[in-house]
């Protein structure tokens, strides 16, 4: 089946098998390997992307369901060579070790800050509760998001 999906502002048209998951569409058909694939059971959240402006788990969406819709991946966070404050925060606060969970964490963080520019530690933890990190113990992820909140001079990056 032919699908057209807008990813990070660019339209892509591809012929796909109807059972293809969105995560594989992004990684294998578009080469956008920033979106990771982990548990494949809707649990770990490493596959998190935005679909029509909200974070979802791309292993739980069929690519055909995204036909005609807009997706944002981690590749769409930086703008013209400038890192998003969330990305900068993860750099500054050592918010990652192996980096497997990081793209999903940053996309959820960006969404959170767009809707709540000054989240409490508890609100950050609740926002990322559907995402597992096996390395950092979450402390530095929370600090990274707080860093981004404190250094967000930029307008919300829709």
């Amino acid at each position, binding site marked *: 089946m032919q699908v057209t999906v807008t990813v990070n502002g660019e339209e892509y048209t591809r012929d796909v098998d109807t059972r293809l998951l969105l995560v594989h569409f992004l990684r294998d058909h578009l080469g956008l390997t920033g979106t990771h694939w982990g548990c494949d059971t809707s649990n770990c959240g490493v596959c998190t992307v935005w679909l029509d402006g909200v974070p979802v788990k791309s292993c739980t969406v*069929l690519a055909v369901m995204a036909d005609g819709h807009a997706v944002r991946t981690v590749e769409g966070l930086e703008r013209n060579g400038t890192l998003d404050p969330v990305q900068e925060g993860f750099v500054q606060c050592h918010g990652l070790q192996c980096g497997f969970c990081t793209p999903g964490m940053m996309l959820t963080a960006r969404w959170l800050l767009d809707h709540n520019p000054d989240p409490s530690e508890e609100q950050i933890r609740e926002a990322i509760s559907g995402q597992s990190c096996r390395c950092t113990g979450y402390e530095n992820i929370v600090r990274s998001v707080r860093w981004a909140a404190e250094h967000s001079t930029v307008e919300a990056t829709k």
Partner: protein
Amino acid sequence: MRPISYSRVADVGTAVGTVTADPASAFLAGGTTQVDLLRIYVEQPRRLVDINDLPLRDIEELPNRGLRIGALARMNEVAEHPSVIDRSPLVSQALLLGASPQLRNMASIGGNLLQRTRCTYFRDVSTACNKRTPGTGCAAMDGVNRGHAVLGTSDQCIATHPSDLAVALVALDADVIAEGQRGRRSIPVHEFFLPPEDTPDIEHPLDHGELIVDVEVPPAPDGSTSLYLKVRDRESYEFALASVAVALRVEGGMVVEVRLALGGVATVPWRARRAERMLTGQPATTENFAAAAREELAPAVARGMNGFKIELACRTIVRALETVAPDGAR
């Protein structure tokens, strides 16, 4: 995943007609249950009919101070809607305590009511399961059954109903509005969820192809205070071990009206009518709350690892009632 065909429908009549005509087809809403179970071969429809373009996403205020919630409204949308927070805080709380934000952004209200049990054997096609494959037995009976039900069980199945939303809806006497080949009908939510008995594979009264169009939620009783309390292994992103939806009205220290429903401990969202009857007209005291909780759990049957749920459910009921009783309870 097996090959599937996929189509979108734009009106309710076509949706109902398409799925009714093909026994191997299924509706697809947010996909958080459907895609999950397709991936592990537990559900094997050959054709998915995507209903996300249907105009069933609105949330309306009803003249009786109740709400009509479209079947395709997303869990997060509903939980955060001002009318829902204002009129049905119980529904909002139950939704926000379920799943994770990324899932709630996709998951619909209709799909939530039709989600399948989290019983690990149901989800593992290599094991015996009467719900998935009738007549094969039940691996949970003598298996790892810590999460399983103690109320409403049968010798065929002890699977817990996983929905939090449904528990709140049962407490509020909501109606499920469905449309099928025979037209539109309204099903009281307490008749919607069927206990396993001898047919654990049959979970609801909908015909194949009958579509949930919306859910009507009456207001909580006048003057009542409500709460959804969920107890689980971790604070977030986990199904309930025990949960309680309560709406309580106390006047002059006496219980005038109480609605009580339990999740996490029963095969269906469980309306605690025995406890309600026992409490109504009685002083709102911790002692009475505990007696009513014990009365509700009296018919509970433990099975191996889930015996702790009986005491846990009692304590959760007491905690929930104490929290909403004016000045706590004596």
